[in-house]
């Protein structure tokens, strides 16, 4: 066989093979991906994913739930944003969840989901997430995948460095991106250096009631506090916060806050802070903030307004807080699984600085200080640094760990993930991200025991990766295999909202605890209808309470007369089903409000204020059975001065 012939044959086979590959292969792609990639992410119909992934929705104020490795979207959890799909933030029971000292707020910007931990490992009880804009921290119960608690944070603005938890979820931290006057005051903005302060807050989680309580705040110099992580193992009594704008600029921060060669990581000994509070070193400061929690028995949110907070001043509390100089506006601060290394993402730096916790303790003991600010000693950089990863990439932001001695750092500017070795600080691998990666997530990758199988790149820009949908593109994440020496791109998948940060956990930890129903016997809602016999309509002046039951496939009552223009009609709908996956929905024509989706055993209330006389149909919105289309009813609305008597029935009219 001649050489040129075999070459041609080879060329032809390659062409044919590529066609077959594109035709039969499960995806075609611009990237070089090897043949078994599709199998690595394929979860057969009816099979389960190995991990749950919880991504924050960024500016949509919600949390997205996905499966890994498939990237399939399962649920959007309403947290800081109203959701007309479920009635969250519209129903009488959930409106209070969004109450703040500024009144009702229908939206916020949610950035960092964080699992509750036991012994430094995600335990699958709760997911916490921060609201940036109007500072709050929310708690999502992972039995029901619903938001069950939100606490507002006073003396704060831009709650960005939040909500990171300590090793046994003793505390959830929060701190200020924007410094403001504490307490807030009407002052000249140019008096920044004099009047503006930062605060670092510690929210305690009561181990018995599992409720949040703002335990204390520390007043710190007016820098921008950016991100945080609590220590673990040897460093478990400490929490670390990055700061930038140590220049204390109040305008054109892009330039003015990028001047200093080094900014700081604040290291806070929270165990000692807790002791100082107990000893009475904290000042009681008046403040107004809301604490909203969902009572699962009453199916209702209860709001309480708190009036004071304990505040610690570092000047009165020696040994409680130190500054670690860190190059160029550090962003992320991540503690490795051993608890020894504190990795900073110096977003304008050319190195990734890694501090040593044991060296820090030694430097404190030896008083290796380089001055102090407001009673906070500044440690010497050389005394605390363990090493620097040289020339990793441009714009290092965040680091997660695989539990096998490697760290993975996202680089925004050069759009890549860089893998490097702890201890030797050498870069061993890098992979591009499409495009402009912010955070990244390894299941358990910020804990003591990462499940180091995948890293998920959480990207800011998608550009040409998907079919265009007008000026606005889908947001996107990318799944990368990290089990081998080289990282391997497996999958792109779109996300709901900006996938700002994410946390992932093995599915087996959550699925066994997942609630299927709310027990109707336990329902203590003040307007519950536990039996169809109790369905009724009660008038109290202008307020009309409809005690309504829903079961496949009828409402009781389903015919109501005697409602008048000007009435406030409260539909309290109880779903009597006790079976999994059987919600009913309720809406009525002209409702200036959202529908409500009612889970089995739950009661939900929606307010209707009819404005014109006439007949108003209502119906079930969630397809429930073959006779779903029959699940309907009528309300007759009469003029305000009419004397149509109040009556109601299902089936046979009452005489």
């Amino acid at each position: 066989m001649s050489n040129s012939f075999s070459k041609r044959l080879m060329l032809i086979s390659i062409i044919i093979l590529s066609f077959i590959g594109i035709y039969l292969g499960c995806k075609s792609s611009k990237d070089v991906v090897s043949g078994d990639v599709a199998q690595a992410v394929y979860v057969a119909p009816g099979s389960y994913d190995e991990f749950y992934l919880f991504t924050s929705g960024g500016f949509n104020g919600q949390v997205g739930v996905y499966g890994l490795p498939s990237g399939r979207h399962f649920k959007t959890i309403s947290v800081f944003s109203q959701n007309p799909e479920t009635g969250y933030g519209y129903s009488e029971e959930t409106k209070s969840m969004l109450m703040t000292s500024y009144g009702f707020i229908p939206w916020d910007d949610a950035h960092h989901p964080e699992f509750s931990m036991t012994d430094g490992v995600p335990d699958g009880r709760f997911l916490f997430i921060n609201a940036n804009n109007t500072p709050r921290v929310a708690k999502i119960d992972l039995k029901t995948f619903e938001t069950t608690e939100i606490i507002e944070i006073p003396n704060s603005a831009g709650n960005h460095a939040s909500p990171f938890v300590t090793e046994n979820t003793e505390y959830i931290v929060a701190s200020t991106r924007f410094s403001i006057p504490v307490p807030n005051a009407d002052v000249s903005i140019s008096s920044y250096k004099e009047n503006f302060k930062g605060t670092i807050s510690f929210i305690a989680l009561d181990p018995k009631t599992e409720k949040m309580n703002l335990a204390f705040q520390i007043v710190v110099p007016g820098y921008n506090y950016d991100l945080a992580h609590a220590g673990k193992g040897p460093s478990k009594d400490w929490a670390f916060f990055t700061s930038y704008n140590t220049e204390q600029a109040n305008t054109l921060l892009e330039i003015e806050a990028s001047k200093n060669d080094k900014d700081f990581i604040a290291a806070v000994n929270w165990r000692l802070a807790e002791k100082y509070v107990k000893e009475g070193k904290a000042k009681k400061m008046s403040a107004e903030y809301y604490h909203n929690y969902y009572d699962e028995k009453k199916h209702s949110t209860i709001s309480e307004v708190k009036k004071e907070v304990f505040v610690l001043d570092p000047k009165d509390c020696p040994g409680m807080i130190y500054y670690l100089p860190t190059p160029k506006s550090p962003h992320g601060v991540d503690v490795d699984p051993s608890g020894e290394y504190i990795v900073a993402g110096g977003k304008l730096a050319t190195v990734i600085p890694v501090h040593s916790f044991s060296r820090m303790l030694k430097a404190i003991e030896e008083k290796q200080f380089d001055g102090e600010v407001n009673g906070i000693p500044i440690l010497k950089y050389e005394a605390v640094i363990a090493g620097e990863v040289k020339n990793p990439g441009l714009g290092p932001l965040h680091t997660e760990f695989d539990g096998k001695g490697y760290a993975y750092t996202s680089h925004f500017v050069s759009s890549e993930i860089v893998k490097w070795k702890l201890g030797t600080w050498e870069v061993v691998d890098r992979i591009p991200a499409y495009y402009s990666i912010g955070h990244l997530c390894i299941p358990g990758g910020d804990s003591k025991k990462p499940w180091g199988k995948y890293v998920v790149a959480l990207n800011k820009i998608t550009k040409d990766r998907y079919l265009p949908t007008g000026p606005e593109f889908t947001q996107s994440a990318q799944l990368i295999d990290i089990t081998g020496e080289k990282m391997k791109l497996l999958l792109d998948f779109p996300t709901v909202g900006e996938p700002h940060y994410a946390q992932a956990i093995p599915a087996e930890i959550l699925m066994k605890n997942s609630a299927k129903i709310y027990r109707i016997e336990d329902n203590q809602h003040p307007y519950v209808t536990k039996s169809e016999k109790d369905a009724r309509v009660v008038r109290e002046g202008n307020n009309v309470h409809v005690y309504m039951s829903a079961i496949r496939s009828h409402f009781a009552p389903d015919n109501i007369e005697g409602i008048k223009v000007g009435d406030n009609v409260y539909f309290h709908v109880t779903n009597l089903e006790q079976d999994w996956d059987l919600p009913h929905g309720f809406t009525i024509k002209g409702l200036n409000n959202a529908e409500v989706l009612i889970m089995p055993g739950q009661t939900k209330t929606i307010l209707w204020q009819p404005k014109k006389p006439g007949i108003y149909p209502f119906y079930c919105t969630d397809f429930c059975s073959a006779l779903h289309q029959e699940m309907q009813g009528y309300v007759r609305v009469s003029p305000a001065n009419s004397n149509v008597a109040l009556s109601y029935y299902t089936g046979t009219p009452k005489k």
Partner: protein
Amino acid sequence: MQKLIQLSLIVLLSLILISCGSEKKETQQPQSSAEVGADLTEFELENGVGPIKEKIELGPIDPKLVKRGEEIWNQKCIACHKLDERYVGPAQRDVIQRRTPEFIMNMMLNPEEMQKRHPVVRQLLAEYMTPMTNQNLTVEDARAVLEFFREVGKEKKK
């Protein structure tokens, strides 16, 4: 050379095929209507499919149990059943005459499977169209409701 190309063709093709192949876990198959009941035992045809797998001793009617059964009936059953007339589901006063006690309990405790696998129940579903919901009763709850049916079944359907 040709062999090498052939070999690489086979390897590549199989890789592509494997990559698209389905996973091992078998999924639950919805049963087609034609074969419902074919796989049931004689006991199951008479007494239903579910946690009650053998005949139960009934004894004399226990008034306390009747009362408990009536409470459960009022909370969990009456949204769909009445005693003397057809509602969402069949009238129930004479159910004790129509079905065995075990059948009645299995229907309350395991409605999904009963509707999927038992020919009689399948027929009821075709007639009433709304599937009977699982109300999460315990075996004790179902036994109490059965006692209530025994008591009300003493009277004739009105």
